[in-house]
């Protein structure tokens, strides 16, 4: 029997909200095995195989077609899969996991309230300190594309895979580009968001792989759609 592979986040809040989202639409997802085992099933859909993965791995799996459907953040798809539109289709935004990728600078930079200011400061900073103003981020592609689009020069990206907000205080960066939901962590770290520095608005989204082999499982998708559509006519 051919199975449709559905990739879901393997743990945490994102997984819970995803399971709730499907449950609200009459699709029951059950964890199987012991609590620590990454396994589960979709009740009533024996032909759907759940693949539990870290949210960060789901974009790649969709892009190479090892899973048919997957739930992850738009930020991760856009960052990790250049030219993602060719390989992956957004089916529906799920209304949770909201996160904005933003550019933030120290609150004490009273002279910076726009990207224009940021660019001018980058030039002055390089002239004074002899190196390019550093932006700490893990979203290298999205940030570079955004800044190139705005014609910003004289910056450099430094990699930060965690505790990005602390890099300015630790003198390893002058600015940060990171995901924020409420902005509280930024404020607590004495950083402010540039009003025109919104790089991407992201939320949890159900994605479809255009690359996966759909020849024998497209019927399963239709069946799943009927369920989802009943509850959420605007979603599709």
């Amino acid at each position, binding site marked *: 029997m051919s199975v449709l592979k559905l990739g879901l986040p393997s743990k945490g809040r994102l997984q819970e909200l995803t399971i709730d989202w499907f449950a609200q639409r009459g699709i029951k997802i059950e964890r199987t095995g012991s609590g620590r085992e990454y396994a589960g099933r979709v009740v009533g859909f024996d032909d759907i195989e759940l693949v539990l993965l870290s949210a960060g791995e789901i974009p790649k799996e969709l892009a190479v077609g090892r899973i048919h459907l997957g739930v992850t953040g738009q930020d991760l798809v856009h960052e990790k899969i*250049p*030219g993602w539109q*060719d390989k992956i289709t957004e089916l529906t935004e799920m209304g949770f996991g909201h996160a904005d990728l933003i550019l933030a600078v*120290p*609150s*004490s*930079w*009273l*002279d910076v*309230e726009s990207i*224009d200011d940021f*660019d*001018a*400061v980058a*030039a*002055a*900073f390089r002239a*004074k*300190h002899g190196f*390019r103003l550093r932006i700490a981020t893990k979203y*290298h*592609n999205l940030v*570079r*594309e955004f*800044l*190139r*689009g*705005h*014609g*910003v*020069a*004289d*910056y*450099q*990206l430094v990699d930060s895979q965690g505790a990005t907000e602390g890099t*300015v*205080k630790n*003198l390893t*960066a*002058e600015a940060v580009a990171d995901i924020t939901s409420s902005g509280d962590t930024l404020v607590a770290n*004495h*950083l402010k968001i540039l009003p025109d520095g919104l790089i991407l608005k992201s939320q949890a989204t159900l994605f479809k792989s255009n690359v996966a082999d759909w020849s024998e499982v497209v019927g399963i998708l239709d069946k799943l759609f009927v369920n989802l559509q009943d509850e959420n006519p605007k979603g599709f």
Partner: protein
Amino acid sequence: MVTSRAYLENGRLGQGLADVRTEVGRLMAGFIANGAAPVEPAALLSADVLIDLYGEDLRARAFTTHDPVKGELMLRPDFTVPVVQIHMANGVSAARYAYAGSVWRRQEVGSNRPTEYLQAGFEVFGGTDPAADDAEVFAVLATALGDLPVMPVTGDLGLIFAAIDALDTNERRKGALRRHVWRPHRFKRLLERYSTKATVSADREGLLQAVKDGSVQALIKASGPALGVRSVDEIAARAEILLHEKEAASLSEADVALVSGVLELKSTMGQAAQELRKVAPMLNAAADQLEARAQALSDAGVDVSALPFEASYGRTTLEYYDGFVFGFHAPDRPDLPQIAQGGRYDALTRVLGDGEAVPAVGGIIRPEAVLALKGGAA
């Protein structure tokens, strides 16, 4: 296919490879006959110098790799920088170089442009007659292309720099415009900002008032802890600049028209100087240079009355050309990139030579594209 290479189906084996080698050899021999010494820069370059020069954007255009000892390395994205470095280390003032080899470029997703392709180049350093050197490099490349169906185009980034110099505005604004010559979008934004009276936010109004009152340091300190490398003094200094900026006179309509007039100038090499004198009579020195170059090209046997000239040509390439620029494209083969291109990059030598500049002009031919073009339609 494993035997295919840039623009050529069978370029890595047998006759296909022999053709590529012959073409590269022919181009090198031509450059050497014009007094060039062969030079062979490393294929793996230190990323620091290149990133420092081109900025973060280069990471999207070049392949980087990492060595545990040497740090970040980059596969040679072009020859100009390493050839300049070799020249600077060579310890002679004037020299000519010929080189050939692969360059590697990351391409955008969906692009069918090659990630690896050959370049054969000719560079002239330390010449004392810029117009003659410009003309010679152009003529040497044109001769090498022979009767291939290519169309030349020329430009001069010196014109836009001359127009910026001539503006009736402060040095800081001129510096900002010069910095963004290669980023047309931001350049336009700057020009718009300098030519209109901007409205200022309430916060900014408060900051400017604090500068006037002498309380700006206190205001900055009150806004939060001083964080990071950028000091309170630097913030205060820029706040002062913002005040000057707000009080500075806007660019006149005539000045804005001067810049756009120069950028939009399209003519022939033969007529360009005359046209420039019409739209920008004050740019006499730039017009004189154009005239001298047209004469030198004509002396080198180039028909300048049929040679297109566009003042904006070369503005969106990697930022190092700052004077004469040229390219040759194949109108019947839109699938091919420019077959040859080049220009003057005096300022780059100043950056790489720690302030010591050498006049430098050069150009490259893409041998694989030449062969593809000889092969006929795509």
